[in-house]
């Protein structure tokens, strides 16, 4: 079998990221110490261009490398969405990267980030478990280094330890699961081959174990309960930029990959096996995430648990396992990126200026920093699913997709999720309360955040306000999802 190099053209999204990585890497390696200051703008500009270019790279559905790699409009869309998120993360990270703490290794930060992004792309596009594992690991391992980035802070190290050990443990479990899958697969690690084999076999303990372990592996990345325990500690200890990256991009990509694996590999056992596994996990994830979030005072830790419960909502799109579910999930991820980054943008702005991350320090924030409070309020409302902000639409659309099934159980699931939105609303409102209502004198002094930070916040805020109202975003995603479905994305589902 000859390697046709034109196949690499199918991977142009990955290659773009890789190119950016190489540019930054080379510049960082060869530039003088003074010149390294330009690394940050360079990385941002390059990645910005790549992001824009990404929009023009969406081609038709193509497979490459004998079907190991697949790209399609929906996959490209997800990647574009991740690009946007990563771009915002980069913008928000600028101040921190250029500060004394990170300046010396700013190049590394960007490089690691691009590598993980590359890994995520692979993971999304992989249609063979080997490629998948490579993508998965290159997405998660460099993150450990990023988590440990704050060399002078103990928390950063502890976070990294917890992250890497859980990550390795999870990949061990995941691969264990894969090995069982392999045993059932008829000797191939191609998704389609495995799916065909599974469809012909009765449900066995081995299959269920394999599936459980695979789900557990994804559960780590998505921080589904009970595989989420690392999340809070890591989020809290990691540098905030990394936390935001972990919470949105990493989670978003894993969610889509999860959908792909569950539908394309295990599609035939949807209704009798993993629907119920996911059912239990979703309830647990949403509820436990919420229950833990209630009493958090550290904003980052708070956001960690919030993102745990958000992951549960994202999973609703998977359990729906239909076009609407896929669309709504991607849309949810998009909105979630904007909302979460909105919150993290404010957290970072304040942390960079004052080093304060406790919710108690946010008391009376509106007196000193009304715009930050405002942006935070909008973002938090969006996370809570309050109209007219985008979060409302993403939530209701994902619920709509789940209820398409005439199944009482899924209605109950939606009801539980809905009731949980009340708990989540409670703790999101706690932030609002601290900023607007608390009568205490403000702790955070009045300051003007840097242009880039404000720019990033504006993007997030605009996204939050407009994404729901401008329905064409959802429409576009629906188109590509529908196309994917037409191409047999859900074909093996029973």
């Amino acid at each position, binding site marked *: 079998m000859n390697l046709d190099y034109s196949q690499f053209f199918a991977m142009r999204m990955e290659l773009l990221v890789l190119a950016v990585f190489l540019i930054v890497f080379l510049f960082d390696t060869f530039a003088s110490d003074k010149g390294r200051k330009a690394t940050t703008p360079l990385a941002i500009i390059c990645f910005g261009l790549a992001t824009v270019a990404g929009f023009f790279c969406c081609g038709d559905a193509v497979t490459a490398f004998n079907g190991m790699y697949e790209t399609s409009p929906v996959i490209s869309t997800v990647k574009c969405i991740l690009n946007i998120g990563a771009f915002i993360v980069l913008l928000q990270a600028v101040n921190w990267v250029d500060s004394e703490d990170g300046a010396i290794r700013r190049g590394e930060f960007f490089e690691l980030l691009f590598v993980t992004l590359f890994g995520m792309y692979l993971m999304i596009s992989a249609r063979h*478990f*080997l490629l998948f*594992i*490579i993508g998965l*690991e290159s997405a998660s*391992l460099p993150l*450990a*280094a990023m988590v*440990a980035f704050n*060399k002078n802070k*103990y*928390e950063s*190290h*502890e*976070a*990294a*330890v*917890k992250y*890497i*050990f859980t*990550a*390795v*443990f999870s*990949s*061990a*479990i995941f*691969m*264990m699961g*894969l*090995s*069982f899958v*392999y*045993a059932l697969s*008829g*000797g*191939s*690690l191609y998704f389609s081959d495995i799916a065909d084999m599974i469809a012909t076999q009765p449900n066995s303990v081995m299959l269920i174990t394999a599936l459980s372990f695979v789900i557990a592996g994804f559960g780590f990345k998505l921080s589904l309960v009970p595989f989420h325990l690392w999340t*809070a*500690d890591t989020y*809290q*200890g990691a540098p905030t930029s990394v936390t935001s990256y972990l919470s949105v991009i990493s989670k978003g990509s894993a969610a889509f990959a999860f959908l792909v694996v569950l539908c394309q590999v295990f599609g035939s056992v949807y209704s009798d096996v993993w629907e119920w596994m996911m059912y239990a996990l979703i309830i647990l994830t949403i509820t436990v995430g919420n229950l833990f979030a209630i009493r958090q005072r550290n904003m980052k*830790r708070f956001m960690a648990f919030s993102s745990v419960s958000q992951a549960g909502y994202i999973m609703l799109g998977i359990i729906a396992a239909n076009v609407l579910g896929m669309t709504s999930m991607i849309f949810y991820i998009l909105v979630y990126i904007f909302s979460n980054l909105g919150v993290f943008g404010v957290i970072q702005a304040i942390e960079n200026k004052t080093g304060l991350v406790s919710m108690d320090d946010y008391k009376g924030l509106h007196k000193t920093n009304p715009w930050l409070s405002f942006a935070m309020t909008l973002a938090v409302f969006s996370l809570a699913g309050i109209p007219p902000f985008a979060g409302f639409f993403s939530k209701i659309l994902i619920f709509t997709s789940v209820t398409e099934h005439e199944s009482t159980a899924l209605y109950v699931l939606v009801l539980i999720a809905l009731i949980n939105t009340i708990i989540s609303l409670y703790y999101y409102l706690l932030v609002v309360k601290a900023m607007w209502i608390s009568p205490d004198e403000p702790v955070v002094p009045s300051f003007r955040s840097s242009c880039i930070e404000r720019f990033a916040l504006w993007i997030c805020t605009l996204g939050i306000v407009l994404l729901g109202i401008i329905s064409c975003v959802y429409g576009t995603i629906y188109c590509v999802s529908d196309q994917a479905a037409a191409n047999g994305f859900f074909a093996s589902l029973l």
Partner: protein
Amino acid sequence: MNLDMLMYLIPSLIMFACGVFGFITRRNLIAILISLELMLNAVDLNFVIFNRFLFPGELEGMFFTLFSIGIAAAETALAIAIIINIFRAVKNVDVKEITKLKF
């Protein structure tokens, strides 16, 4: 499933279990890392066994194992680096000591 395969599979599973057990019980981070290696190796073994016994004509399992070994190495390197960081920070690699972030 033939008996021969089971003979190989059981040790591999035991290895995996040992890894889990070691992870949970050992107090030294390095020991824990070793336990993790045990688990990863058990996985590799699994792949090899399945490939050898179930699909003797194919090589995917073998290749997977190769990659897996590489990944395990990378993971270990990273983990060691982080452990060193921790050691620098607290002069200790006792896992019970690094529970500052909780609840």
